[in-house]
Each structure stands twice: as structure tokens, then as C-alpha cells.
């Protein structure tokens, strides 16, 4: 399915006055893909979404849709579905009327509209709420109406701008599952803006990471998490342990631990906490550390450690009765293939 490139973003840039919101972005979105645009606030991810949707014009570059230049097409010509931040439901219309609105615009027959609305209401699980106004609905229900309205006219692409940011954590998890299900069932291309790393990792087939208006990396969740292209990506996606490298010796700073990989030009070695463990006798790498704190988390404990050089490390330990007190001298180990230089 994910073979043909549906949307191509070619050297897209966007300036607001002198402020550069996006600089020279290139990426391709395949048909049926679930792409998350991930980044901190102000990173340009929402700007790119509005450009793809046609709600704003880029300052430079081109946008292609199925090979056609759609750069100058207005939003209505592109016909993508959009779920706005805050949902942007019509407050004076009922749930059913909200969903029917785009269909009426398309001048479909009454019977067709009624069928489709019923189908959409069913799909997002809002049966029985058809006649309610949006203000009478909970946040999660409003979210569903927005989804149903955006999907009612079967758009080829669905754009979602931080759709879950206003929901509490439990509801968010539930909505994420439903969104995954929708994506699986419909096969529509989803482009999803979020600042929540876990959300992006859990939902997407691909993630594009943005910072300061620049694309940092694009790849599958596994690729961006396991092999971050740079330090920003590494730090932004979950917790990471960073150890300074001594450029001249190719060793970890202030140790004699030699690294098997070429690390020329990089300043830090990065290891995810879940790849770090307390060293056994036969481990090749053994880094002496001091325990600063142990946080009990129920199913596991989090150890906060400090190297002799004063760098902070973290790792998770399955709970065992070992009584480790802050100040204990320990050794940590990791497999060389799980570490990467940034």
C-alpha cells in the first residue's frame, strides 16, 4: 500500500515577515501512510500542516499531489479532510448537521446524506447523540464529531492538528486507539501534528521531527527512536543517556573505555535507558558509576546514576530485593550495538 508517493513537499519555506517559520522542507508522504509531524511548539509542524491543507500559501517551494502541482490550489480544491485544534465544530448545528455540512456543500442527495451521516455516526460511536449540539458533548465526543465531519466526504488525505491536546490522559489513550483503528480500516493517508512523542511513536507509520522550522529526521518510529540522526532527535524522543566522548582518543571522556565504532567528529555517545543495565562480570564494557537515587515505580525501579565525570545516567531495573543505597558504587554495561554517537 505504502508504495506511491501521494504528497510531495519540495523545498517548502514559509516566512512571516522576517520570521522564518519553515526553511526548505523536503519530504514525501506515501498513500495510506500515517505521518506524524512531531516537534516542540514553534517548530513549524503546524505551519507545514496548514500549507499542505492549503489554508496558507508557502513563501517558496512547491507541493505536489499525485504528481500534480497543487501549490496554488486553495484548500477547497485539495479536498483534504481537516481536524482543527479545538475542533472548529459549528456550534449552532447538531452532531448530524455538522457531519452533513460538507456533504450538503457537495450537493449530494438527501437520502445519500442521511445514509452517510448515519454511517459516520456509527463509525465514531456517537449513536444516540445525533440531535445534540456540540456544547452538550464532552471533549472526546466533540473530537469524534470533528473526525466524522472531516471523513464524511471520503477525503484522500486527513490532516489532524493536535487533535488530542485538550483531552485528559485516559481519554487520549482511548482516542488514539480509535484513530489507529480508523486508519487501518479506511486506508486514508493521515498527517498528524503532535508535540507528544509517545503519541507519535504509538500511532504513526512514519514520523517527521521538526525543530526551529527545520526537518531533523524522517523515518519509521523504530528508525527515529533507535537511530536518531542528531542529538535533538535523540533527546526529544524519550529519555536518553549521554556520555561525553574524547575526540582525540576515541574513548569515553575520562575513561579508558574504547569504543568499537568510528565516532569521529561526534561529541557524545548516546544509550537509551532501557539498553543500559548493571554490569555482569563478563560484560565487555564496564563503566563505574555511583548511585544517586533509586525511585520505586512498582513494576520496576529507576536508578539515577552519576559517572566519575559528573554526568548523569538513568536506567531501569526490574525490582529485586537487593538493597542499594544512594552512594553505592556500581558498574553499568550496554551492548555496543545499542549505542550511537551524536
Amino acid at each position, binding site marked *: 500500500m505504502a508504495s506511491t508517493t501521494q504528497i510531495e513537499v519540495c523545498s517548502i519555506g514559509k516566512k512571516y515577515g522576517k520570521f522564518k517559520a519553515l526553511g526548505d522542507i523536503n519530504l514525501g508522504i506515501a498513500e495510506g501512510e500515517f505521518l506524524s509531524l512531531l516537534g516542540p511548539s514553534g517548530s513549524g509542524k503546524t505551519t507545514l500542516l496548514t500549507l499542505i491543507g492549503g*489554508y496558507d500559501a508557502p513563501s517558496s517551494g512547491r507541493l505536489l499531489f499525485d504528481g500534480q502541482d497543487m501549490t496554488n490550489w486553495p484548500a*477547497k480544491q485539495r479536498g483534504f479532510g481537516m481536524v*482543527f485544534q479545538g475542533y*472548529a*465544530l459549528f456550534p449552532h448545528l447538531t452532531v448530524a448537521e455538522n457531519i452533513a*455540512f460538507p456533504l450538503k*456543500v*457537495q450537493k449530494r442527495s438527501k437520502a445519500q446524506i442521511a445514509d452517510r451521516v448515519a454511517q459516520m455516526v456509527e463509525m465514531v460511536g456517537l449513536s444516540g447523540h445525533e440531535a445534540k449540539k456540540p456544547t452538550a458533548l464532552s471533549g472526546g465526543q466533540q473530537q469524534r464529531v470533528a473526525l466524522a465531519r472531516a471523513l464524511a466526504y471520503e477525503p484522500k488525505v486527513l490532516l489532524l492538528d493536535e487533535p488530542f491536546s485538550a483531552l485528559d490522559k485516559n481519554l487520549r489513550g482511548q482516542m488514539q486507539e480509535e484513530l489507529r483503528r480508523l486508519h487501518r480500516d479506511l486506508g486514508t493517508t493521515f498527517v498528524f501534528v503532535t508535540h507528544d512523542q509517545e503519541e507519535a511513536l504509538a500511532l504513526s507509520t512514519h514520523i517527521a521531527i521538526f525543530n526551529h522550522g527545520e526537518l531533523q529526521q524522517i523515518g519509521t518510529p523504530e528508525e527515529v527512536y533507535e537511530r536518531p540522526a542528531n542529538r535533538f532527535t535523540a533527546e526529544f524522543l524519550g529519555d536518553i543517556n549521554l556520555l561525553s566522548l574524547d575526540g582525540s582518543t576515541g574513548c569515553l571522556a575520562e575513561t579508558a573505555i574504547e569504543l568499537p565504532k568510528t565516532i569521529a567528529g561526534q561529541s557524545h555517545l548516546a544509550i537509551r535507558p532501557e539498553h543500559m543495565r548493571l554490569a555482569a562480570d563478563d560484560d565487555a564494557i564496564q563503566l563505574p558509576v555511583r548511585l544517586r537515587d533509586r525511585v520505586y515505580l512498582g513494576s520496576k525501579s529507576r536508578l539515577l546514576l552519576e559517572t566519575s565525570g559528573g554526568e548523569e545516567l538513568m536506567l531501569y531495573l526490574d525490582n529485586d530485593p537487593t538493597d542499594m543505597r544512594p552512594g553505592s558504587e556500581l558498574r553499568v554495561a550496554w551492548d555496543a550495538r545499542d549505542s550511537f554517537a551524536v
Partner: protein
Amino acid sequence: MRAFLFLICPLLLFLGCSYLLPFLGIMQLSFSDPDPGLAQYRHVLSDPLTLSVIWRTLRICAIVTVVSVIAAYIITLLWVRGRPLVRSLTELCIMIPFWISVLSRAFGWMSMLSNRGLLNTWLKDLGLIDASLQMTRNEFAVVIGMSHYLIPFAVFPLATAIRNVDERVLTAADGMGASRLRIFWQVFLPMTASGIIGATLLVFVFSIGFFVTPALLGGGQSVLIAELIYLWIFQIPQWGMAAAMSVILMIAVGGILVLLMRRYGEVAK
């Protein structure tokens, strides 16, 4: 709570002395002068001349309300959603009338609309008409004058509603392919319904009690309720009738307010 009641006391006292007492006096007058009982009310509500005045008042006020709210809606759109220059000019045009007394405004309209007024002179000079158009001393002039006075009052409730419209909702409608016309009629206008209802109420209630503007611009040819009350007090003294009419007017206004607030209170919130 007690401290609150104590603090509000002076206001209650003032309203009681300046409003409630005179009103009770009027009530008493309406039931006693010249005949005790309901005679005055019976007369007011059965006399064909009086009834025609009431009917004319309701009709003119309804027309004025529609004209004012529609004009105010357009002005408010320019004020709230126009470009910066348009905005400041519109704001000026909304504020200036507040500084001009109702009397000068009425005279202003007379010099515009009268038989030898500006408008007739221009139209004649342009060769568009031969004889002067009768534009004063009739209902047309009254509607113009009253609407001119009331438009700014309709602007404020409308402005609140129009400012509260979520821009993203309009963007969403546009993205779904809705035309500008459809967005206006089916999205924007309904989203400002609370403002339209508020403005309509305010203007209608205000207009029912109008005196100076209809008296001057109507030139005695289109007497409204307030002018009739004036006549019954100062020209052909029938104070009991005037009092009965005032009470009816007041109950009508109060009734309309209560009804509309009941009906639209939900929306207006």
C-alpha cells in the same frame, strides 16, 4: 450577603423614590381620573384613533428595528472585521452620533429631507426630479430619523457576538468547499444569532418610547404612542388616559422583554 444588601440600599432607595413612587402615582391616576375604575383603559383600547396610533407605533418600530439591525450588522462587520483604516473610520462614525443630541439630529434630517432641503435640491439640480419629493412629515422620515438614532445601540451587542466567532470554524467551512455566501448565511449569521437577538430587543424596546424624533420628523402626520401621551398631558388634558396609555406601554415593553428572554435566554447566554 448582608453587607451586600446594605451596600445596595442607597440604589434601591433612589430607584424607589425616583421611579417606583411616580409610577405608583401614574397607576393611581390611570384608575381614577376622571372616572374611578377601568374606564380609561377601556377607552384607550376601544377608541379607533388610539388603536390606530398603537398599531402605527408597532409597525414603525418593527420597521425601524429591522432597518437598524441590518444596517448595524453591516457597520459592525466593517468595524470588527475590516482593514485597520476602515475600522477606525467606522469606529468614528459609530461614536460621533453619541455626542450629538437627538434634537439636533432631528433638525439635521429635516434640513436634509425637507421639500427645499439638500436632497431635493440636489436631485432637482441633477435633473432627476421636477417637483420636490415629500420626504418629511411622513413615516419615511420617522423611520430614517429613528433608525439613525438607534443604529449605534444595535452595534454593541452585535460587535460582541461577531468578535466571538471562532475564525477556525469559518476556515473549516471554507476548506470543505462552502462558498462565501453559504458560509455567511449558514455559518457566520447563525453563530452571531445571540447578538442579533440582543440588538433586536434593545432597539425595539428603545423605539417604542420614542418622542422627539417622530414628533419633529413626522410633523404631526404620524403620531406615535409617546407623542399621543404628550398630547393628552399638555394639549388636550386627559391625564387619566395618558396614565393608562403609559401603563399599557410599560406592560407591553416588559412583557416583550420577558417573553423574548424566556424564548432566547439560552441562545443569548
